[in-house]
């Protein structure tokens, strides 16, 4: 089923559409949510957050615009934002120390002015371009580490390389990215 057909199904037959959407993308959404929440939440909180993401997607079903991005991208953004929300709430209640991998950030960026918004967008595009230019597997390591929040061991297993190689490549990639975005 094409994404356009799935969007149509979500509108015409929400029950079936939601079923197909969850069957197809649940494992992906879980990966993003768990990456963000594994340090502060239990399994049930992660499940609750994932169900929220699909519910949000269901609510947005009539306004989805596939020219902006795929359903997977919509779900990824929703998953990120919802997980950050939950993380912030948990952190307040659990008083968990901030690790290097997690930090406070606005769920949706609300730049104070237009200049800042433009600068943020430029920075994002530049970072994506630089990550792309790292080539495989360095780009994959950066995305898995910093977008999906995966551990070095998980990345090493997924990409079939040694853990210390992952760390070395990550350090080198980080240095390159730092240099590239420091000018902005």
């Amino acid at each position: 089923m094409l994404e356009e057909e799935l969007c149509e199904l979500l509108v015409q037959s929400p029950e079936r559409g939601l079923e197909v959407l969850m069957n197809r993308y649940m494992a992906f959404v879980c990966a993003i949510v768990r990456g963000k929440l594994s340090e502060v939440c239990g399994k049930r909180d992660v499940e609750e957050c994932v169900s929220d993401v699909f519910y949000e997607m269901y609510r947005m079903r009539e306004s989805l615009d596939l020219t902006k991005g795929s359903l997977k991208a919509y779900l990824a953004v929703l998953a990120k934002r919802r997980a950050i929300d939950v993380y912030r709430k948990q952190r307040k209640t659990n008083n968990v120390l901030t690790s290097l991998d997690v930090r406070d950030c606005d769920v949706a960026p609300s730049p104070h002015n237009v200049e800042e918004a433009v600068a943020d967008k430029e920075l994002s595009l530049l970072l994506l371009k630089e990550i792309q230019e790292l080539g495989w597997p360095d780009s994959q390591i950066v995305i898995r580490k910093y977008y999906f929040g995966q551990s070095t061991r998980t990345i090493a297993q997924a990409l079939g390389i040694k853990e210390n190689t992952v760390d070395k490549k990550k350090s080198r990639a980080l240095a390159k990215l730092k240099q590239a975005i420091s000018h902005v």
Partner: protein
Amino acid sequence: MDEKIIEILDTLSVEQTDKMLQESRDVVEMKISGGQRRRIKQAAYRKAGLKNPRPVCIPKVVIPLAAAAVLLASLYAAGLDSVSAAFSQVFKLLPGQGIQENEEGAGYMLAQCVTVENEEIIFTLENVVAADNGITVSYIIEKKDFDEQLHQRLVEDPFSVDQEIAGVFEWWPDRPETISCTGWGIPPEKAPSVSLRTEGTEVTKLAGKQCIYGKYERSTFRYEWNTEEVSEAITYTLSHGDYNVSLDFQMKNLTYGALEEIGPTGYNNDISITAVPKVLNNKLQVDLYSINKSGYKLLTYGDVNKGGSRGYGPYLETNSGIKQPYEPRCALEQEFYEFMVDEVNCRFVFDIEPTDREFTFKIPYLFVYSGEEQTVFLRMPQEGEVARLNQRVEFSEGPIVIETVETAKGEIQTEDWPEVVLKITLRYDNQSPNIIMCFPGGVIVFDVDDTQIWRQSNFGWDEGGIIGVHAFISSPESDEVKVVFQYPQFWLMDEYALSFSL
């Protein structure tokens, strides 16, 4: 610096996220259990105010004590936690068609097989299903006065019979009808005179199909009928005017509260398989129905006559030993039954001993495929060089690894069309011994310069999956080749053991 990158990636727009995901060329997913999947789904439906899953409906079905004991034993053996975790609690069995889950509307099926006979035939009403504003009736006729010898000759050498009939060679002589099958839409001149009546009113016939094999004739007719008018209290009459015979039957509700009430059920990898056994003509007939929530498409149950077989398939354990199903699998007497069984909702038929009472139907593995697709871009090395990549192409159940890439001169070497042969070798890096991936030929597509390569060949096999591909490329302008891996196929090696007693 880590924090800065996380912050940027956390706040990407939909468009930017899409770009990143496309370029990452890698699937990142988390393993989730059936229980987790079910809880997440239930929560999402609840929040959305949707009615799935529906509350439990307690059906009026009595399970014999012996069957209940077997059911409990199999539930216990399988582990209660894993059983039916991903499945709902309201099912509708449509015999010969499938099991529907959480479907709206009532459904009814034949309460009991009915057989009547006269001097000419034995008339058996085998199956009736009332659902979706229609009613489907299937019956079998066994002719008592039948020329077995003529039939045997038609099976073995139909052309000699043709010559006798026509006297001279003729393409389509009017053969005796001992072997024939129609699709839906029997020609009016061949349609049997069958009518269905309820409370004195004849029901409108919509379509029919018929299969004749030797002394047996099996016909199925669909009638226009509002299923709301169906009731367990009403008696229906099916009449066959050609043989002047009729029979009465009643219907029963076909909604069940659990798959196990329909028949012994096994669950693996979010695929349930339910067996509905019955003895017919001294043979054990096992109909299989699946509900598939795995995301895979079920191809076969491992039938040795189908693609994807590992050389062995389903079998039956009984008191008297192991029984293999009739050949071909999923069919009895070839043409006679083959048309009526679906690839997935399949029928297996076994010879059994009169003393056999306890049975376990075993399905050692399933053969499935997924709709996944992954694209990678490879640099073609210089002629004669071998690039050792070990590049992983990730799929949900594990990667396929591109081990080496090399190029060589092709056989065609004209000035305008110098051919280059790209050779890649592959390895399957299965993550679980119970899920074995393979790519059969034809699902790996190469593009160079946005043009699909028109010729490729495969070499080497590892458990059914190709491990090497030759792609023949004419005068490439680019040294980059796009390789698309589509529709990986898998053997799911978790066994189904469906126990029952008769």
